């Protein structure tokens, strides 16, 4: 049983990086209940693996790896039939108002719709890119080469430009 100090540190770190949890879960889950369920799965895996976390690495990098790995396997549905449906109001993360940004920035829904269309792996890549990570960090999280990251981001951006052009 981990000591209260470790538990407190974990809660503080997850709180500090709660946006990662939200962004990944909302990018892979289709409904609010699915998102609540996915957040719970990610937190359980994070906590289960916390004793292996090496402080030499940034917590955000480690958290992204776990969150994306859980989200992609959740999305792939291997454990779908074993899930309990978590009511959306029991979500670990609560958004104060409606999902922010949708009214103020009209391009955001279009961007979210585009991300939804991407495959599981490209979706992970673009979330990391949009969050401002360097190619080296993205390569480290995904386990591919830096040049591969650069080429793939270039291709996704081309697709996105075409998509935006078709909608305007």
């Amino acid at each position, binding site marked *: 049983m981990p000591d209260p100090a470790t538990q407190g540190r974990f*809660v503080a770190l997850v709180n500090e990086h709660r946006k990662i949890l939200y962004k990944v879960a909302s990018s892979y889950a289709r409904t609010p209940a699915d998102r609540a369920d996915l957040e*719970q799965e990610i937190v359980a895996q994070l906590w289960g693996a916390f004793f292996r976390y090496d402080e030499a690495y940034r917590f955000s990098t480690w958290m992204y790896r776990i969150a994306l790995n859980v989200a992609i396997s959740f999305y792939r549905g291997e454990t779908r*039939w*074993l899930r*309990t449906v978590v009511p959306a109001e029991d979500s670990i993360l609560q*958004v*104060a108002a409606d999902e922010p*940004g949708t009214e103020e920035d009209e391009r955001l829904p279009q961007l979210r719709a585009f991300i939804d269309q991407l495959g599981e792996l490209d979706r992970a890549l673009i979330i990391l890119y949009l969050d401002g990570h360097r190619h080296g960090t993205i390569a480290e999280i995904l386990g591919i080469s830096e040049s*591969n990251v650069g*080429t793939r981001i270039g291709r996704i951006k081309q697709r996105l430009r075409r998509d935006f052009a078709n909608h305007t």
Partner: protein
Amino acid sequence: MKQSWQAYDRKLDASLELNAHLLRITMLGRAQTAVGRLSWLLAVELLGALAALVWLVSFTVRHAGEARFAVPGAMLGLCALALAITAGRQFAVLRELDYGQPVLAIQSRLEALRLERLRGTLVALVLGPLLWVPALIVLVKGVLGVDAYVLFSQAWILANVLFGGAVLAGAVWASRRYADRMERSPRLQRLMRDLAGHNVNHAIGFVEELRRFGREPGSA
């Protein structure tokens, strides 16, 4: 694109709150996860297969001189052995899985595991209708001490084997034709897609996608 995302990020800063109480409940394991339940399921599968294996080996040894009991006993024993090995291996893979490793490596392992489970289900669904007659012979003899060959006529046993084959052929045909229309019943749809081989093909497709993703674009 990045500007929209950054604006979204800033607004999340202001509106997103962590429910520390629910987080702690999850940490305490009161909310079991699907991955945890899959591990339990595999552990139960492993224990069941091992128990069946021990009983079948003992049955086969006891009837070593009687081919009509020893052959179905050995056949079922081999199935139990295969199930025990598969479940044990999958249980070990799942327990050792470190989600903190790079995404491509973990997803490749997970998809290989998924493919193995799907193929296992497919084999079980195919063998099920064919193995129930040997299972009946072994169970009736092993549990009740009754000779099924005497109790039922050989023609009856042969008819059941043929009926099992017909059920199997019908199930494969129906799965290929109707699996995609079973959206109201996800579990049945999953079984039908397994039997039709759709889920296996899908998993093979994702394994290939993972390979492509790991390769430099443009490289052979």
